[in-house]
């Protein structure tokens, strides 16, 4: 992620860490100073005050002892008053010491001082009573030496013990304060050293990274400058070729313009021919329709002929039936005639005339039979002819149907031709219109091509300038690389 930081981000991050460490140094220094000041205040405000109060306590004891001795020497009452004042001061200081002395040892020593002072005061009061009773001075001195002096010494010892203890505490507090200050100084020094090391390291890393990246970028700028120079050269060459090509294209477009004009004229002729074709197709459609109607009439006539032929066939069949009867009658007549002939022959002379009649009847029957055969043949011929005619007529009817269908197809085809001719006319007009639009567009393209040729020449000129700029950029990048990485440059 750091690899993708910008230079500003990296430098800012280094400075931010340095500032953070500096702030840490300040915080640690402030904390150490505050600790030192606290220790100093505690040493001065508590331990030194306790020592001063102890000295005050010793002074009040001395003052009380002096006042007592003054009374013992002079028997003046003002010394008793001073003594009371000194003791009041002692009591006040003792109260302060009790209040400020926090440790058990201090409280024990203060209690010992208070007991010793009470015993010392009690001894002084007894001697003072003795002095007021006007006892001899020697007795007073002895009593003083015997009762007051040892108690005074013990009281001083107790005070001295307390002073010694307080001096030890003060010394300990001083040492603790000194240790805290030393620790703070050490910590500050360590952080300062760390800051210095980090700053040095960051400066080194930043210098190296930035130098390398800038060197890489400058190298890329150099490479890009070279490529840009080559591209500018190619662009100049390409622009020159483009200008030449544009000239050729302009010439070609002029030819295209002429071709478009010819296409327009051809499209106009096509439209005219298509209109004429449409008129002819409509006329053909009407002709086909008339022919279609004629074929339908023929179809009806053929149907009529077929019906007549079928009727003729039926009639022929009926004639055949009648002819069968006639034939049978002729056959029976023939048989009768033969039998009559036989009978006439058996009748002798009288039957001869009858035999003649029978013979004639037989002949007549033979002829009728022959005629019947002939008629049957004719009827068969008629029926065969009728069948042939019916079949031929049916074939003709089918042919008429096929012709009618073909004419229908032809009519549909004529309609399609008419529709297609209409479409062709429209297409030809659209071609004409499109060709005109194409001509306009081609003229615009021609103008645009000329503009492009001009632009190509300008591009060629600007490519030269780009080449010069790329050369300058290459020199500048080399200088910059020399500044960043002199060993490479």
């Amino acid at each position, binding site marked *: 992620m750091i690899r993708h930081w910008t230079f500003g981000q990296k430098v800012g991050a280094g400075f931010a860490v340095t500032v953070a460490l500096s702030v840490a140094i300040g915080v640690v220094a402030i904390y150490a100073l505050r600790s030192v000041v606290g220790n100093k205040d505690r040493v001065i405000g508590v331990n030194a005050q306790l020592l001063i109060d102890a000295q005050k306590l010793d002074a009040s004891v001395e003052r009380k002892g002096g006042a007592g001795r003054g009374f013992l020497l002079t028997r003046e009452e003002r010394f008793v008053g001073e003594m009371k004042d000194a003791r009041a001061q002692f009591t006040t200081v003792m109260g302060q010491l009790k209040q400020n002395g926090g440790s058990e040892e201090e409280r024990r020593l203060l209690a010992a001082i208070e007991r010793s002072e009470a015993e010392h005061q009690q001894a002084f009061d007894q001697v003072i009573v003795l002095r007021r009773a006007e006892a001899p001075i020697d007795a007073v001195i002895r009593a003083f030496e015997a009762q007051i002096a040892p108690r005074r010494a013990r009281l001083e010892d107790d005070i001295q013990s307390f002073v010694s203890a307080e001096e030890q505490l003060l010394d300990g507090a001083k040492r603790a304060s000194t240790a805290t200050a030393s620790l703070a100084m050490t910590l500050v020094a360590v952080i300062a050293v760390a800051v210095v090391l980090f700053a040095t390291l960051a400066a080194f890393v930043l210098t190296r990274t930035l130098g390398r990246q800038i060197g890489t970028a400058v190298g890329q700028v150099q490479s890009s400058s070279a490529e840009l120079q080559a591209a500018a050269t190619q662009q100049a060459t390409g622009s020159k070729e483009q200008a030449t090509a544009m000239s050729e294209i302009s010439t070609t477009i002029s030819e295209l313009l002429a071709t478009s004009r010819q296409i327009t004229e051809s499209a106009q002729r096509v439209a005219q021919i298509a209109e004429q074709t449409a008129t002819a197709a409509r006329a053909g459609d009407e002709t086909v329709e008339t022919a279609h109607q004629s074929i339908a009439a023929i179809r009806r006539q053929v149907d009529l002929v077929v019906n007549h032929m079928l009727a003729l066939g039926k009639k022929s069949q009926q004639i055949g039936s009648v002819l069968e009867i006639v034939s049978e009658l002729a056959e029976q007549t023939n048989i009768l005639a033969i039998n009559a002939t*036989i009978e006439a022959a058996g009748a002798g002379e009288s039957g001869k005339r009858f035999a003649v009649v029978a013979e004639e009847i037989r002949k*007549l029957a033979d002829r009728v039979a022959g005629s019947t055969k002939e008629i049957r043949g004719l009827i068969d011929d008629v029926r065969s002819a009728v069948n042939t005619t019916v079949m031929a007529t049916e074939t003709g009817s089918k042919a008429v149907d096929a012709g009618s269908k073909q004419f229908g197809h032809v009519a549909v085809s004529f309609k399609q031709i008419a529709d297609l001719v209409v479409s062709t006319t429209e297409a030809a007009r659209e071609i004409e219109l499109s060709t005109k639009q194409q001509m306009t567009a081609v003229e615009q393209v021609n103008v645009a091509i000329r503009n492009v040729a001009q632009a190509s020449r300008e591009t060629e000129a600007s490519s030269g300038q780009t080449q010069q700029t790329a050369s300058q950029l290459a020199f500048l990048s080399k200088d910059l690389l020399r500044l960043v990485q002199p060993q490479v440059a």
Partner: protein
Amino acid sequence: MHERADELRQAFDRSFALAPDTATDTGTVENLLAVRIGSRSYVLRLAEASGLFVDKKVTWLPSPVSALLGIAGLRGTVLPVYDLGMLLGCPKAAAPRWLLVTAVTPVGLAFDGFDGYLSVRREAIVPEVRAEARERHVREVVQAIDLVRPLISLASVLASIENRASHDGSERSDRR
């Protein structure tokens, strides 16, 4: 068609107006009946026949004689009816339609078809000399200009029937 009818009528009338044919009268003409038996054509003498019939009902009669078709009632007389083709030696065919009654002995002879009535001169009837063409009951042949047909001798046919009948009768008498 009317012309044809007129022609037939005139011919019919003319025959009665003319004199009778002398050939017929003098007996030089032979009247024949042209018949068909199977696929073959024959002629019969009209003089040997007493009647010609067609489509007459023949009642079947059980008989050992295979050529006997049965009996038929003609003009009040019951006659035996034989198959002429089988009598001539032809194989049995379908039921013949035509029937001829012989003159001397009334016997019915059935045959398949009747072609017509013929009148030929006696000179046209010649004996059958070809040995390979001779058939049973055929002794003569009619040779006209446009006709050559074997002539069946009905007398021979009747004789064979009678011989067969008398032979069968003698056999029955012997068996008795």
